[in-house]
């Protein structure tokens, strides 16, 4: 089947129908209307105690109708794709406007075909036994890694999202977006002590991805290594100190510290600590940060965003200077800036808004070993759990799951997980060294905003931040005030 004709073949839609729905959406006026059709099929499998305990598959389909009038947005959706229900949703969304009907532009402009994830066979359609094999292999590899690994859970999930976006401005885009991910989590136990470790990866890839380098054994070993390491971890320090972030997933720092604050909706409303800072210095000159939705196979990539706009590479910070924001159609129009193709939504039930894709810092010139060597007393954090930010006051956190002390230029003992907290608009001004080893994460990130979850990617080279607050429990060697 020609995937680009998905909704026409499955639901008997015609271009004439789409025009009719858009006309209904603009029946009470409004500046703009769009329709987002989505058909999502997914699979999820889990092995626990070496048994495949959970297997599920599902389908969800629907259409969301949006009408924009000035700064107002009306939204309605239906999970029934009959003409009658879509027209009802369109008329409901139209209630936001109250003016004479408008007419959508005649004829759709189909967006140029692009193929960042050209899978021959989407993983959702692949043999389920091959997916079962993946998680069983992960279970086996983790248990074989060390006798102290006692509990192993391995999971695999994939989906295929077919979308069709049409809008009253002539936008017409279709895409078929695969996404697959596997995860291994395990618990290491010794007499009176236990610790956890986890690892995972994936992307907009076919099933064969997991039979290459990033195979079940790779993730199983990584999860097991982390769990064992944590068995010997000592108390993390508390207070401000030098922090070195390892390459890859620690890029969640950028996502929280600057990424969200640069989403255009917050800046249009002037609720972000970054509002009004374009052209100003927000980072040291070593820092260039981009958001790039065009990287092949990446979890955060998209051929088109959820408003039908092609994604792009957007420079957010260039040599320390703030260059611009991540925008969607609404904020681009209201702020008079370009649409960067960052309008995303969780599903047809949700209103799109500016979101990140793959956000990372370009490599610098420092040798990672030199960066470590430059630190007298600090923390080297190489793996993180999640993070969070308050975009208004700029405070952000991210939680280290694998970290070490650095003492006199050497990486020493592993320390317990600790939250790091800082201030978004100035943390990057304290970046004094940037490694030459840019790496992106393995493909596990999911970002939440206003209750909407979307897959994203992050990355950094090894970075040194001169001062960041580490949330441990141990007394600092020098200074500090203890009651």
């Amino acid at each position, binding site marked *: 089947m020609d995937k680009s004709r998905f909704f026409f073949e499955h639901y008997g839609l015609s271009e004439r129908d789409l025009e009719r729905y858009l006309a209904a959406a603009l029946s009470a006026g409004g500046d703009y209307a769009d329709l987002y059709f989505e058909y999502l099929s997914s699979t999820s499998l*889990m092995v626990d105690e070496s*048994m*495949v*305990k*959970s*297997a*599920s*598959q*599902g*389908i*969800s*389909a629907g259409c969301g109708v949006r009408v924009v009038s000035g700064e*107002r947005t*009306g*939204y*309605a*959706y*239906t*999970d*029934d794709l009959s003409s009658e229900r879509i027209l009802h949703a369109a008329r*409901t969304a139209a*209630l*936001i406007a109250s003016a004479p009907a408008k007419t959508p532009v005649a004829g759709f402009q189909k967006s140029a075909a692009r193929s960042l994830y050209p899978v021959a066979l989407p993983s959702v359609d692949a043999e389920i036994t091959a997916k*079962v094999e993946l998680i069983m292999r992960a279970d086996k590899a983790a248990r074989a890694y060390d006798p102290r690994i006692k*509990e192993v859970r391995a999971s695999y999930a994939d989906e295929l999202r077919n979308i069709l976006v049409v809008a009253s401005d002539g936008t017409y885009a279709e895409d078929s977006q695969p996404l697959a991910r596997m995860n291994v989590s395990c*618990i290491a*136990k010794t007499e009176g002590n*236990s*610790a*956890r470790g986890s690892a995972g990866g994936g992307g907009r890839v076919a099933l064969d991805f997991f039979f290459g380098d990033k195979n079940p054994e790779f993730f199983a070993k990584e999860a097991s290594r982390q769990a064992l390491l944590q068995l010997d971890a000592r108390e*993390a320090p*508390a*207070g*401000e100190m030098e922090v070195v972030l390892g390459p890859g997933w620690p890029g969640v720092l950028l996502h929280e510290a600057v990424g969200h604050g640069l989403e255009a909706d917050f800046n249009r*409303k*002037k*609720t972000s600590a970054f509002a009004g800072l374009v052209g100003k210095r927000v980072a040291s000159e070593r820092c260039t940060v981009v958001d790039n939705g065009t990287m092949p196979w990446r979890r955060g990539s998209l051929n088109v965003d959820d408003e039908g706009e092609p994604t792009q590479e957007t420079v957010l910070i260039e040599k320390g200077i703030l260059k611009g924001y991540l925008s969607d159609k609404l904020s681009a129009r209201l702020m008079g800036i370009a649409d960067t193709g960052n309008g995303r939504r969780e599903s047809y039930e949700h*209103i799109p808004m500016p979101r990140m894709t793959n956000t990372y810092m370009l490599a610098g010139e420092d040798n990672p070993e030199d960066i470590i060597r430059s630190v007298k007393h600090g923390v080297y954090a190489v793996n993180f*759990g*999640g993070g*969070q930010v*308050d975009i*208004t*006051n700029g*405070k952000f*956190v991210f*939680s280290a799951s694998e970290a070490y002390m650095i003492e006199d230029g050497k990486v020493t003992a592993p320390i*317990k*997980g*600790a*939250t790091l*907290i*800082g201030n978004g608009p100035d943390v990057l001004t304290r970046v004094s060294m940037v490694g030459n080893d840019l790496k992106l994460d393995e493909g596990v990130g999911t970002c939440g905003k206003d209750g909407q979850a979307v897959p994203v990617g992050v990355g950094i080279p090894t970075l040194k931040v001169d001062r960041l*607050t*580490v*949330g441990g429990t141990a007394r*600092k060697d020098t200074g500090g*005030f*203890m*009651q």
Partner: protein
Amino acid sequence: MTIVTENQTATDLKSIAQDLVARAMKSGATAAECVIREGDEFSTLVRLGQIETLKESGSKSVGIRVFFGKRGASTYSSDFSREGLDRMVKSALELAKITSEDPFAGIPDADQLGQLTCNLDLYHEDVYSLPGPERIDYARRAEKAAMDFDARIKNSEGGSFDAATGCKVLANSHGFVGEYRRSYCSVAAVPIAQNDDGAMQRDYWYSVARTLKKLDPPEKVGKIAAERTLRRLGAKKAKTAQVPIVFDPMVSSSILEHIFEGVNGDSVYRGASFLAGKLGQKIAGDNVTVIDDGTMPGGFGTSPFDGEGIPTRRTIVVENGVLKSYLLNTYTAKKLGMQTTGNASRGLAGTPGIGPGNYFLQPGQKSPQELIGGIKEGLYVTEFLGHGVNLVTGDYSRGASGLWISGGELTYPVEEITVAGNLKQIFFNISEIANDLEFRGSVAAPTIRIDGLTVGGE
């Protein structure tokens, strides 16, 4: 507006669920369970006096779980056409062939099934009774009250009004069938305050209820939101220190959630909980009693039966510091050789998880002011940032903001700090519990004081 309130529709959903169970059994399944969820939502956001978004819609979805002996699998769909439902049942039966024989898998035994029959007061049609313009006005009034409260409130993320109703239907091959409806409405305000130096702070407040009659007036919500925002202005970092910490009720419930995760049967049987194997032992001070009660009329965590068709009940989880019970569903109960506590939570797909009923920390005698009054130097936490809690080891490290306590009084705001310790000690160090228990969701705790935590700052 598409509000589905007719009982006719509900009955139809029950018969669809029973029919799907019957179809699975006819195709050779040895047990089957079907869940249907239907819901409608309305939401509006008003910002700076103007409507920003209006959203209204309804949706319906169905999931089925089937077993061939000890092998199970599940599928779900939003397609209720005959063809769509057939495909869903067929896929579940196919999928069950690839899962493992698990001696503990299955639906509950027939004699455990049942439901509360009293009126649980969960559904009020009035959440949708307001005409459109009045709903928008609720949102507008909440925001206006915040904006008008003080000249330093200069911006806003808006005022909002939301309403929703939902219906859940569950049927299984032991003949169980049940359904219940719940309603919900809320009003909120998110003001932004700004100092002369341009620094901004944002906070929020909301009221939530199952009926409009119990919803706080928007003006009250807006005013509290403004007060909470203003008190954050001019925040500075605190010094790294070990001081007593008072948890505002908005954050003390998170401590209770950690106990919930710790007694969650799924973590317990895997030994992935710091509370595994501690049944009958002291895990907290004598003053700590924690209860889970899924039967409280009107409660946010109330339902007549759990996600597997087990009647909900009241369970004492911790009594005077002693761990009395884990919270379990059928599977985890079997794994641990115990009985389910009626805490199964069932999504559309996958195996049932474990969820709270109305889960709370028994309040004490003192007022929150008395708790604060007893502290010379300390921290009053109003907000946590991030999720730095390791439930395997109990290690606890979170970003925080709040107010500094000096001489028994709240003084200046503090931010960009961390609070760290270990949950194993934290529960023993809950030195005082105030009397201000209020349910704003299914998990609730009064103001509490915890000693021995490390504040990380300058």
